[in-house]
């Protein structure tokens, strides 16, 4: 292409120079305008063809050449040709052809042809021109053949169901646990099919799968369905309630940690107590002069009806008055879980005693006086 354009340019220039000579010699010496034509004019108007296609024979030849080249490279580097891995190839190429180019893709590389020539670009028909796949003329052969197969499984299940009904046998319906699984995503499906799948096609496929799974006798085709479902890691972690510990005196106790805003607290709740609460070595009456904070501390005990039965020793740091009270409340509630039945733990959870309060101070934004407060609006 470059040679052709150069020749054309040379021809154009030659034409212009000849014209120049003729005109310069004549009585009227006109100023010459150089008209340069580009190769675009000369290129035939070919429609944009699709992506290049490669034949099977071509790919095979490339693979043979790659294997041969790999052995030569191994010999050059003085390594064993049998155990020459892809990483060794990369290292050898980087050593023999050092490149200062920034882009990794632009540097010289030697990879297996299957990675270089994508699968879908292979020519889909044989020598006589007949395509290999019977749904080739639809344009989306893999997707439609998948739909065809899935529908066939659905028909199979229907037929099996009909047979069971005809023989008056019970049609089983065990509840399959779908909670821990999800269907394939669109991108995963595209990777499997090696062709683009539109959103509508994908949703249609998922609906068909759901229809298949909804049938009572769908267990027959379980293996087929497994291909399209993925495990979802169980998000819920069962909260383990620690058992009671016993100190030297034989008294049962339990620890808990809690936080609120910037305050962090730990509480140790002892059994067989008198309801005394100590915070950082100070009695609560002196540490929390305000009634509201003391009420917060007493709330878990009051909820469970164990007000005079436990002793508590807490340590707290950070935050303000109210935040520290909230932190200790959470810590004591967590500690009390060990003393109490599962049902009461559930009641505590529903009452909000065991939930960490996520509210923190909102940041100030530029152009405003506070997190939400704007500057005073002046009309003029």
């Amino acid at each position, binding site marked *: 292409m470059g040679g052709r354009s150069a020749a054309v340019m040379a021809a154009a220039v030659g034409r212009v120079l000849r014209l120049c000579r003729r005109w310069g010699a004549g009585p009227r010496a006109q100023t010459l305008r150089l008209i340069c034509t580009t190769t675009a004019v000369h290129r035939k108007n070919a429609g944009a063809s*699709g992506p290049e296609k490669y034949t099977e024979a071509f790919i095979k030849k490339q693979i043979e050449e790659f294997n041969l080249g790999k052995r030569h490279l191994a010999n050059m580097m003085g390594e064993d040709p049998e155990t020459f891995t892809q990483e060794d190839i990369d290292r050898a190429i980087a050593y023999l052809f050092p490149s200062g180019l920034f882009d990794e893709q632009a540097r010289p590389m030697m990879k297996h042809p299957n990675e270089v020539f994508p699968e879908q670009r292979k020519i889909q028909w044989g020598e006589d021109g007949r395509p290999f796949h019977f749904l080739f003329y639809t344009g*989306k052969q893999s997707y439609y053949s998948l739909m065809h197969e899935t529908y066939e499984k659905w028909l199979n299940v229907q037929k099996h169901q009909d047979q069971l009904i005809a023989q008056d046998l019970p049609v089983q319906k065990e509840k399959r646990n779908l909670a821990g699984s999800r269907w394939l995503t669109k991108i995963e499906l595209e990777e499997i099919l090696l062709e683009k799948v539109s959103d509508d096609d994908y949703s249609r496929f998922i609906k068909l799968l759901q229809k298949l799974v909804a049938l009572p006798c769908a267990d027959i085709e379980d293996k087929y369905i497994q291909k399209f479902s993925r495990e979802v890691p169980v998000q819920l972690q069962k909260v383990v309630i620690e058992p009671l510990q016993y100190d030297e005196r034989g008294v049962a106790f339990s620890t808990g940690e809690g936080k609120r805003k910037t305050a962090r607290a730990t509480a140790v709740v002892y059994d067989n107590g008198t309801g005394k609460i100590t915070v950082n070595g100070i009695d609560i009456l002196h540490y929390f002069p305000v009634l509201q904070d003391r009420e917060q501390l007493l709330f878990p005990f009051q909820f469970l009806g164990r007000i005079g039965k436990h002793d508590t020793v807490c340590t707290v740091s950070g935050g303000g008055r109210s935040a520290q009270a909230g932190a200790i409340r959470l810590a004591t509630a967590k500690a009390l879980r060990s003393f109490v039945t599962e049902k009461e733990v559930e009641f505590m959870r529903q009452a909000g005693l065991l939930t960490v309060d996520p509210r923190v101070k909102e940041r100030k934004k530029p152009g405003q006086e506070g997190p939400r407060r704007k500057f005073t609006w002046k009309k003029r």
Partner: protein
Amino acid sequence: NLLTFTRTGSSCTVGARTASAGSAAPGAAPGAALTRTRGTGSAPGSAGEPPGSDRTWMTSCSPSLSATPDFFNVKELFTLKDLFDARVHLGHKKGCRHRFMEPYIFGCRLDQDIIDLDQTMQHLQLALNFTAHVAYRGGIILFVSRKRQFCHLVESTARACGEYAHTRYWQGGLLTNAHIQLGPGVRLPDLLIFLSTLNNVFEPHVAIRDAAKMNIPTVGVVDTNCNPCLISYPIPGNDDSPAAVELYCKLFRMTIIRAKDKRRHSEAVEELRRKAEGN
């Protein structure tokens, strides 16, 4: 109540068929080549070129369509009773009738059109014969139907014959823009078989017009609400009953397999004959 038939309808379809058969646009798809050699091929059995040559698409050692009208004996595959039992004669209601289908309609009973099975027999024999010839010459056959009910059946039939099917959404330029959509150097189908000529919105399928544009012959089952123009070999008959469609699929499958077997057989015979001559 019998209808008064108009002759114009029938002549229209016959004209369409001969027009598509006779036309051969220069530089057209291989489908055109098929129609060009129609009636000019040598008698069956006599060798033109040896079968193993390059031009597998149109070999001249093939039976002539005019010399033996039923070379593959497709008549024995079906009887009038089979068509009647499969409910092929049942058309749509009088209000849905297409004007050009009037020649093929026997009558109208209680507002429902009844298709003339004698005409159907003739058309079916012609269509099956043509399909067999196409399959004999190694042509690509594409089954088209946009009825969701029979999508799976048609695809299975195509797969069983070793041919191709398209029972899904038809993308606009599939035939006319094939070199971009399907890849450069693709070979287009040599015959389109419509199990139902209407699409999901009860309009003529785009493929009929596109095949006519690309000079690809078509065989189609036309119901009383369909337009039989532009179809090379229409088969007036019911396209809605499962029994009827299963019958059509069975007939097409048997003809194509029969034609391919005959081809393999005759190629084997040729091979042996050449070997004998060589020795």
